[in-house]
């Protein structure tokens, strides 16, 4: 039996923006059927990682293959096989969702079967009443739904989702989580970044904790617990310990409590 090819195989990625080092040797491997959660403090390098994987940015150093292609030299091949949702939905705001989906499906050169898939997705996300309204006039959550549908309409093997639950209401969030699980269940892969620990804890088959541009810990919840030496910890506790922020948070809370007791608040 042949070993499955990884959907993401990145090693020692470095990305510099001028004097700022966003990634400092990040390595990552995601297999088919996996939901891989990227967790990290603000500015840890999660968005940069996802942008590099989706072919929107190129690393300063390191090597990366996405669905078997190099996103730097074969960006179009990568984009054909991935669905990307940015942290803030990037859409043509003067188009309506109907026009936008038509544009995305046509430029991806999809056949008519995509209409049914996109219509189903639009229906489950309750997008019907917004279908002919310019996107610029819609709420953040509705824009996010449009971005999610556009990223999934071509059934890509790999989804790259940057904070995909941003702005979504509980109902839509639940549907998106289900879609992600179904996608992985069908042999697809998902890499997504999130700040919501519960989401990562319940959905991810593996979690990578990113700090200062590197994956500082990686594994299933059990593996992370073993790694931290705390068998009963929540993901939030593990996260703070593994990113060396435990002491900082304890000190900050201590100061706030002292101030509060002194009546400074």
């Amino acid at each position: 039996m042949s070993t499955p090819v990884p959907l993401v195989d990145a090693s020692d990625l470095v990305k510099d923006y001028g004097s700022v080092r966003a990634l400092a040797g990040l390595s990552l491997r995601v297999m088919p059927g996996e939901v891989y959660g990227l967790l990290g403090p603000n500015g840890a390098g999660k968005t940069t990682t996802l942008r590099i994987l989706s072919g929107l940015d190129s690393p300063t150093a390191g090597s990366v293959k996405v669905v078997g292609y190099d996103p730097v030299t074969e960006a179009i091949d990568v984009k054909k096989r991935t669905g990307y949702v940015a942290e803030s939905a990037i859409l043509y705001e003067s188009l309506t969702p109907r026009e936008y989906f038509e544009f995305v499906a046509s430029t991806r050169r999809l056949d008519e079967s995509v209409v049914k898939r996109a219509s189903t997705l639009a229906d489950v996300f309750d997008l019907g009443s917004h279908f002919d309204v310019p996107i610029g006039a819609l709420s953040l959550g509705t824009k996010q739904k449009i971005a999610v549908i556009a990223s999934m309409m071509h059934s890509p093997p790999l989804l790259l989702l940057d904070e995909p639950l941003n702005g979504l209401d509980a109902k839509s969030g639940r549907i998106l989580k289900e879609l992600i699980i179904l996608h992985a269940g069908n042999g697809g892969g998902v890499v997504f970044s999130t700040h919501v620990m519960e989401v990562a804890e319940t959905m991810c088959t593996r979690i990578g904790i990113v700090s200062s541009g590197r994956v500082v810990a990686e594994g299933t919840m059990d593996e992370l617990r073993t790694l931290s030496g705390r068998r009963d910890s929540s993901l939030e506790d593990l996260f703070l310990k593994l990113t060396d922020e435990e002491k900082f948070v304890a000190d900050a809370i201590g100061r706030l409590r002292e101030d509060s007791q002194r009546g400074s608040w």
Partner: protein
Amino acid sequence: MDLGEAWRASKVSYTELVYRPILRSGYTSRDMGSRKSVKTALTGATVNKMIFALFTMAGALFPFALYRLRIDSSSIHLTSASIDLTIAVSLSLLLVFGYLVLYCVQVLPTFVSSGSFGPLAQLPVASRDVSTVAAMTLWRTLDYILMVSLLSQLAAIAYFTGSITGTLLVALASVSSSLLAIGLSLRLTSLFQRRLEGGSLSGVRAFFRPLYFILWGLGVMSAVFLFSVISFVAPPLQVMLTQPSSPEGFALSLLLPFSAGLIVSHFSGQNVAALSLVLAVGGMAIAALGSLGASAVIFRTIAGVVLPTRGVTGEGGKTELSFRVRGALSAYILKDIRVSSRNPATGFLFALPLFEIIAVVVPLTATPLVRMAPILVGAQVGGGFALFVAFLLVTVEDLGVERKTALPFSESVRTLSKVIVSTAAYLPVPVALALVLMGKALTFEGGAIIIPIATAGSVFAACVFEVSVLKALADTGRGTAVRFAAGIGSGELVLILPTLAYAVAYVLWHDHAAALESFGLVTVMELAAGAFLLRLKAVR
């Protein structure tokens, strides 16, 4: 909030206004994220404003230069350039009005949609204060252009007439005209914004949209390109203004730029008919009142326009959740047309084909014998309009959206879409030329129609080069003026080469047929180079 605080707050909003589009465009540089990148953005915006201010100054002074020419050559018969002071003042005001509207409709959509005023809206600041800050930010956006146009016109009047009253009147007319231009642009932008927020884009309004664009687009384009047809426009205007009892003379004397021209001429000791003067004084009074109204509209509507709006819910009921899948290129072309037709900065490009027909055909109508030169120039002018369309198409969409969107476009699809739309905008030129040349005597019958048709190939190649230059510059974060100069300049360079080849060959051999062959050869070479460039982009 006092005026000092509002002025300081407007500096923050202005910086946001300049910096956000660069961030959103996806432009990354070594300095991105540092304080230096903000300073660089502000410097770029200042350079941009200075370049547009220079254009405006040229427009403001050009009619006075022609007036000066008339004074110097009063003993020489120089009909085409001969304009009087009334026309010089009027056309100067009209040109600046056109430039200002054109600049405002380019700037205001960003002003409205940048979200620069969002943070202000979250603070406990009264709507009136937001208006004050927004108006001050608008001033910071337009300051150089407004100051330079006003000072140029004042200096010209003071120099030519030495009349203090005349100079003060021009100041009043210039300020009124500028306020009306800003008010009109703001109104136009807010109309678009409301339409985008208001729900469906289909139906009756969609039907009238092209008509609306053509009407106002023609008006603004006429004012902007006035300088190129000034010698055709000035003589009939002069005649009309000397006949205030005629309907057209009556109407013109009441209209702002002409009423100001008549009054300034009167106070400069020139002979103006009594009825004209009465009408002009009335016209100036109406314009002054109108500009006061425009200021009130600017102040009243600006806060509503710049503040972020909440999302809307569409119409209820069962909607057919389907769409049509097209070919990639046709979908891209359709997207370009849709996006540009819903933006006031570019909507008027739909009026360009009609305008270019007028600009190309009018100079030929009065000539019984048509030589090759006006046909070559006409095709060049038409091609120039196509380059302008390409520039607007590239500019209208946030370039960053394209580069950030994780869709599998190749560069060639992006470029080809804009090139096809721009070249299509040129196609009415050969048709119009063919119609106007029917029944006219021609010095070289064979080339008269072949040249405008062959120029379509050169226009295609020129647009490929222009779009490529613009895309390359987008990655450097250059300002609009620099991109405009580099993009249009590179396109013009390609466009003019076949005409140069024609001229050189004709000078060498005095043979139109040989010159036409050279023209064709260079055009074919340009097309091949354009196709090669597209092919290079296809693999990226």
